[in-house]
């Protein structure tokens, strides 16, 4: 019987359109995600095969979350249907048992819910057969991942969802209650996730996630490309537990429903149908009704207006009081709260909740909710009367048609505005709660008006008119969905102009320094354009608004024709004209004043340039030895003008006849003059110009090359506008705006898939260290070695302009402010200009131990290091009269929070680096804030631009947090050594010399300041990011010493490697090697040094037993899985404790693709015993020693004199271990 009912149910749903609509939707979504990069489901596919098992699992996993809506639609219908149609009595009076009825209905509808996912499966299978898919990115077909995902990911999740909402539907018999509970479910889900974010035990969190999303990503977060392409999630661990737990809960819920279900309770029973109107008729008044009910009716414009206002009021109130509105807004509020906790966090340290950040939080965390509210209530409002069957009453009222829809549209706008206001109140509350009282209501107002409100309103207008025109609530929703999908697919079709992307505006971010800068005008213009478009849609909505009961298309057309008269026609004509005019204005700006170029156009241009000019890559060219430049910045007009001279020298052994100059083709002027040289060819599109010299330049001979470059912004652009030259906070470097010598490989396409598409040979990311030719260039510049810079920069009188070098003179002329900078020691050919309205804070560092907290030499160093201190670095490196160093912080007056911290960090850094590496080559360290259009800090000679988005607004009030302002500052100051003193050749491993050494230097300064415990916290982040990011590797993972500019290696792994090396051989030995390395290579080249040479220096100071450690750390990709299996402690008679430990160690070697092989273990690894610590932290070490581990499982017996609490192997996880949490165990 149950079977028959289930089959009946299944057949029923298969006859309904909903099943096909949903399956088609799932198919389309997945198909787009598989066949293009325009649609993304749960994180990009990256470089993994498009049909990789991981992709299949991820797609089905993410789509199963949507099951909350789709499956509920089926299972809820299965119970509601009978009650709604009144057929319940038929069923419950028949001999079917109640449980058979319920179980049958559930199974049938649940099965339909699962079948929708065949759309996803088919989409991946068919999608990967499409001819335009790169064959290189397809793995072999395998059925197993599909079967696995369906049965272990989709089915359990849908079963749980189905069980819950089937039960809610059966027990409440109310569609409203069912859908409200769906929303409540989501709210609970997101709230619980937000609350559990801080729980350290990810395993518990992941088991409790009903969708299994957390447990899936916990299990796969460190997967490499190889694993993603080949492996299925192993059944076990938290994932298995998760699945079992939730299926069990689903069964339990169903059981309760079977027990509690009461078929006699009728559907939608009136809540309190007190029939007060009872039998006895009230005495009838004897006056005639017309006399009694006499009233004056007025009609006309004023009356219509009153009707409009009254209707708006009642519509608005109805929405505000409705449950979904309240729930979605609450959901959004929670999401804001969660986001405000997470936003901009670096190493766990939050940002100050400045208004700019809060506006961004609203944009990221709430705008979508506002749009969902608008889209949902557009359908609700348009069809409200029809759903309630009140339309015949209201449509027959003496009300103009426009009042009927305009009131609804206004109500929609009002609720959108209310939801946004609630969002703003939420962030204001968050600011207050965080003790931040600098409320900038102006910034809020502008932010909401420029970034959020118009977009929400436009989409509300679109949703509203779609509902009217399509005249079916679900088609209306589907129409919105289709719009979203199509709009996001446009770029893939090479259609990027915003003239046809509804409600879009050119991108542009707020910066505290620059405000909304030049983004305001394009935004307002585009909003006007789309508002006019929406106005036309609304007029169309008016024409096709259904009034009465006749909704046949023919009839609607007839009605529309009748309504298209007078005001409606005039409005339509006006909006159309204004729309076209605005469109023309936009076109003039984006396509006439500026060049409109799609991503594909740009790529093709890059590919063409490479094809034409790559052959000149090795052509010997003169090199720049000195730069003299006058740079005039015009911030108000976003323009700059450069006139300068390079001194160019033939450093080769042969005469040079041709000089190739490359320049930014977007510049308005790019004139270059070389005495006696003729232009042989000039490719303005590629920015490639060839000169033939009158006489070949003899070896060692010099020429002046003068140039005039000019950039000026014109109007506004369709895409990303120039954010380097802005009104307040200009930050440019020489790469973009100065001319260059020789072929510029930076223009090459890097993405290997794109290269294939344009017929370009695979790129060699970096040359090997054995390539001496490549080592003739340093990592920074291919056109110069060490240069002198002499530059004068002018700007607006209220701004300060800066460039590397020392300020020689500053003056004012012609209403402009001039600054002349000059270097006194050679620098790399990498310099910058900044200009803004700065506040300045100054301080001085003296090389002698300073009074304020500076440690004396030796103090803070680890004891037990027996190496003698090295002799001073070679004297020629000492700047004349090594003395105090001036510290200057140039910052926005709004951001004074961490300026002192930066100064302090600079001092501490200088202390450590001068003492342990070499003297500082400059007399000054300057940190300069720049707008948050980019979020990084970068080190130029004596000059460190630092984004307002990271250090300046970091909230360091909680001393428990990692002070990354200190860290970043120390890292950037370290670059004055690692890059600006020693630079490697442009070969593999180059960034290890620059970035890894800066990381190490910063780690040491930090450790002295904050102690070891903080370092562990920091290194845990580094470990996690290394393991995560290596999974996204596009080409191949390199060992550290051959790193090919891969940030996860040179920063993240670099930190771990250097910290481990320091641990094995001691800080003093490491620093001795570094000192020697600087002594040997500072300010030298070409040929430039390599990471291999540094590793050799490390080996020299490393004792024989740790030589293999150096190999593993620098020359291999080695991972460990260390684990403490057993740990017990017993108290001895003498009061001491015996700790018995059994530890397991596995050592794995990975190849470049992430395929791992176990190798025999033969390593020195820490064994430690600890006293009780606070929370999950380890306490005081009672025993800590490196033990030689040679077997997979080893046991130790250790005697300690205090009461131990925890013990284990590699307790500080200095080794790379995917699961460092099981390294220690409680005793």
């Amino acid at each position, binding site marked *: 019987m149950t079977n028959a009912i289930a089959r009946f149910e299944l057949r029923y749903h298969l006859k309904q359109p909903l099943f096909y609509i949903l399956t088609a939707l799932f198919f389309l979504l997945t198909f787009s995600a598989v066949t293009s990069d325009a649609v993304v489901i749960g994180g990009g596919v990256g470089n993994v095969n498009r049909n990789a098992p991981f992709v299949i699992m991820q797609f089905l996993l993410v789509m199963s979350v949507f099951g909350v809506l789709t499956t509920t639609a089926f299972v809820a219908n299965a119970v509601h249907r009978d009650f709604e149609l009144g057929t319940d009595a038929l069923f419950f009076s028949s001999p079917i048992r109640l449980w058979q009825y319920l179980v049958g209905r559930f199974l049938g509808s649940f099965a339909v819910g699962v079948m929708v996912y065949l759309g996803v499966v088919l989409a991946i299978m068919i999608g990967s057969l499409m001819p335009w898919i790169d064959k290189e990115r397809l793995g072999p077909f395998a059925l197993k991942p599909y079967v696995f995902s369906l049965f272990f990911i989709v089915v359990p999740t849908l079963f749980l969802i189905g069980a819950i909402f089937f039960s809610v539907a059966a027990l409440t018999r109310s569609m409203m209650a069912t859908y409200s509970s769906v929303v409540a479910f989501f709210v609970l889900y997101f709230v619980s996730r937000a609350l559990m974010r801080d729980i350290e035990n990810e395993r518990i969190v992941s088991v409790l996630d009903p969708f299994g999303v957390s447990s899936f990503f916990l299990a796969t977060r460190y997967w490499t490309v190889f694993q993603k392409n080949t492996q299925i999630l192993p059944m076990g661990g938290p994932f298995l537990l998760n699945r079992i737990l939730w299926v069990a809960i689903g069964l339990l819920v169903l059981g309760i429903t079977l027990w509690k279900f009461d078929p006699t309770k009728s559907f939608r029973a*009136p*809540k*309190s*149908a*007190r*029939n*007060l*109107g*009872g*039998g*006895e*008729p*009230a005495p*009838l*008044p004897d006056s*005639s*009704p*017309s006399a*009694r*009910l*006499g*009233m*004056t*009716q*007025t*009609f006309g414009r004023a*009356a219509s207006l*009153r*009707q409009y206002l*009254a*209707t708006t009021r*009642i519509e608005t109130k*109805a929405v505000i*009081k*409705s449950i979904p509105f309240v729930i979605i807004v609450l959901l959004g509020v929670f999401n804001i709260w969660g986001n405000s906790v997470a936003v901009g966090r670096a190493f766990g340290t939050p940002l100050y909740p400045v208004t700019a950040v809060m506006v961004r939080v609203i944009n990221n965390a709430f705008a979508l909710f506002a749009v969902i509210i608008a889209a949902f209530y557009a359908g609700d409002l348009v069809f409200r009367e029809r*759903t*309630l*069957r*009140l339309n*015949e*009453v*209201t*449509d*027959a*009222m*003496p*009300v*103009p048609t426009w009042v009927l829809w305009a009131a609804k549209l206004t109500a929609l706008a009002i609720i959108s505005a209310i939801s946004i206001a609630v969002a703003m109140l939420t962030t204001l509350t968050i600011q207050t709660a965080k003790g931040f009282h600098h409320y900038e209501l102006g910034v809020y107002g502008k932010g909401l008006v420029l970034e959020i409100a118009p977009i929400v309103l436009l989409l509300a207008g679109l949703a509203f008119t779609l509902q009217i025109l399509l005249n079916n609530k679900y088609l209306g929703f589907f129409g919105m969905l289709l719009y979203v999908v199509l709009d996001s697919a446009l770029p893939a079709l090479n259609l990027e102009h915003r003239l046809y992307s509804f409600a879009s505006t050119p991108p542009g971010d707020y910066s505290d320094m620059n405000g909304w800068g030049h983004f305001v005008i394009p935004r307002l213009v585009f909003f006007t354009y789309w508002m006019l478009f929406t106005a036309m849609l609304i007029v169309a909505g008016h024409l096709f608004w259904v*009034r*009465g*009961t*006749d909704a*046949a298309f*023919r*009839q609607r057309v*007839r009605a529309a024709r009748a309504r298209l008269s007078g005001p409606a026609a005039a409005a339509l004509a006006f909006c159309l004209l204004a729309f076209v005019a605005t469109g023309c204005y936009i076109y003039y700006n984006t396509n006439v004043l500026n060049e409109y170029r799609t991503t594909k156009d740009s790529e093709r241009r890059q590919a063409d340039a490479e094809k034409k000019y790559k052959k000149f890559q090795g052509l010997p060219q003169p090199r720049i030895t000195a730069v003299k430049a006058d740079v005039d910045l015009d911030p108000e007009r976003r323009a700059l003008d450069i006139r300068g001279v390079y001194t160019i020298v033939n450093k080769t052994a042969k005469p040079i006849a041709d000089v190739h100059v490359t320049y930014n083709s977007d510049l308005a002027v790019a004139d270059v003059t070389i005495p006696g040289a003729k232009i042989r060819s000039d490719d303005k599109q590629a920015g490639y110009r060839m000169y033939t010299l009158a006489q070949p330049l003899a070896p060692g001979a010099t020429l002046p090359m003068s140039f005039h470059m000019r950039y000026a912004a014109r109007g506004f652009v369709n895409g990303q506008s120039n954010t380097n030259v802005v009104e307040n906070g200009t930050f440019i470097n020489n790469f973009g705006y100065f001319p260059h010598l020789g072929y510029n490989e930076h223009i090459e396409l890097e993405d290997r898939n794109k290269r294939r598409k344009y017929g370009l040979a695979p790129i060699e990311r970096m040359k090997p260290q054995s390539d001496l030719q490549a080592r003739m260039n340093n990592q920074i510049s291919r056109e110069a070695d060490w240069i002198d810079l002499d530059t004068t920069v002018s700007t607006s009188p209220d701004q300060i302009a800066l460039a590397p070098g020392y300020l020689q003179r500053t003056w004012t002329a012609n209403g402009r402010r001039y600054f002349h900078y000059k270097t006194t020691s050679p620098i790399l050919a990498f310099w910058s200009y900044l200009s803004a309205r700065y506040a300045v804070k100054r301080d001085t560092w003296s090389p002698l131990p300073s009074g304020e907290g500076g440690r004396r030499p030796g103090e803070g160093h680890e004891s037990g290091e027996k190496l003698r201190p090295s002799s001073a670095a070679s004297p020629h490196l000492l700047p004349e009269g090594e003395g105090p160093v001036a510290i200057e912080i140039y910052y926005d007056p709004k951001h004074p929070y961490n300026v002192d911290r930066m100064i302090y960090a600079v001092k501490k850094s200088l202390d450590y680096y001068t003492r342990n590496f070499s003297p500082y080559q400059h007399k000054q360290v300057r940190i300069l804030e720049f707008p948050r259009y980019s979020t990084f800090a970068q080190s130029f000679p004596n000059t460190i631009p630092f984004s307002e988005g990271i250090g300046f607004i970091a909230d360091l009030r909680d001393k428990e947090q990692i002070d990354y302002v200190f860290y970043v500052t120390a890292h950037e100051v370290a670059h004055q050594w690692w890059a600006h003193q020693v630079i490697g050749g442009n070969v593999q491993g180059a960034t290890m010399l620059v970035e890894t050494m800066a990381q190490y230097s910063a780690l040491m300064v930090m450790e002295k300041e904050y102690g070891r415990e903080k370092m562990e916290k920091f290194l845990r982040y580094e470990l996690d990011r290394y393991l995560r990011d290596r999974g996204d590797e596009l080409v191949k993972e390199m060992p550290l010493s051959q790193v090919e500019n891969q940030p996860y290696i040179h920063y993240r792994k670099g930190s771990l490697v250097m910290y481990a090396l320091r641990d094995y051989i001691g800080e003093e030995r490491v620093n001795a090697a570094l000192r020697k390395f600087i002594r040997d290579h500072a300010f030298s080249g070409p040929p430039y040094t390599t990471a291999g040479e540094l590793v050799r220096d490390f080996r020299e100071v490393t004792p024989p037993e740790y030589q293999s450690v150096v190999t593993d750390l620098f020359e291999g990709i080695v991972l460990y899985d260390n684990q403490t299996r057993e740990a017990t402690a017993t108290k001895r008679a003498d009061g001491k404790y015996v700790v018995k430990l059994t530890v397991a160690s596995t050592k794995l070697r990975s190849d470049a693709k992430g395929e791992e092989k176990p190798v025999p273990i033969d390593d020195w690894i820490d064994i430690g015993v600890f006293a009780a610590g606070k929370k999950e932290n380890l306490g005081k070490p009672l025993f800590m020693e490196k033990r030689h581990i040679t077997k997979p499982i080893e046991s130790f017996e250790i005697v300690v004199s205090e009461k131990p609490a925890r013990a284990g192997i590699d307790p500080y996880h200095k080794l790379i271990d995917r699961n460092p949490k099981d390294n220690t165990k409680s005793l």
Partner: protein
Amino acid sequence: MSLELRIDDLSKTYPNGVRALQNVTLTVPTGMFGLLGPNGAGKSTLMRTVATLQEADSGSITLNGLDVLREKDEVRKILGYLPQEFGVYPRVSAEDLLDHFAILKGVHKRSERKEVVAALLHRTNLYDVRKQKLGTFSGGMRQRFGIAQALLGNPRLIIVDEPTAGLDPGERVRFHNLLAEIGENVVVILSTHIVEDVSDLCSKMAIISFGRVLVEGDPAQAMQAIEGKIWQRVIPKEQLATYQQEHAVISTRLVAGKTVVHVFADERPDASFEPVPVSLEDVYFSTLHKAA
């Protein structure tokens, strides 16, 4: 001024092919007009068309020269309409919604509106529950609310579609009284399939079936026309089919568990049949029987 609604040659075919109205011609004078017909006869289509909610394919409707099909806005100003099925905003109180409808009906003076709303709530015996949310109303209460809203304004054309469905007998009586009172000066069209409603209230009536007008006129006259032609007999249930073959059985009903048939015949069919006084119901059923 006496009003007259003329429906002339009105036809309507739905996109699915259903011919809801076929050349309907009716004259509705001031007073109560009953529109009788079985379910699906086209009553509601006709009512909605008069109530400006539906277009006709051909034909015309005029109210004292006012073109109902074209000048909808003017019609709505004098229209009171109670549709057959209707819902309410569940979270609004009766008083507030009626007040809102009063605004839509053009009653803008607040004091006047208050008075009118209170009066109507009294009339429909909803005054005591005026603060209650409409979502909690029973079917009868909701129906009475519908009547109240239809009487808002000064409707001179009142269209009520199945108004007494769901009312208990007492409510029905009161509703009839109310309608009769109003019907003195305005046009009231009452669509129903309950013959009694018409016989109680209406001075004019029409019977429509399958979109056609079968009978139009005065109920009394219609009854007179078949006087002496209706015969009744109690029969065993099994023989119903035989009787239906042999006689023009216009209606069958159970009286105290026995099957009673009414037969239309000019002469007494046989002695077992006895004559009965004609009711409007007999008119109704004999008309439908003839048309079938």
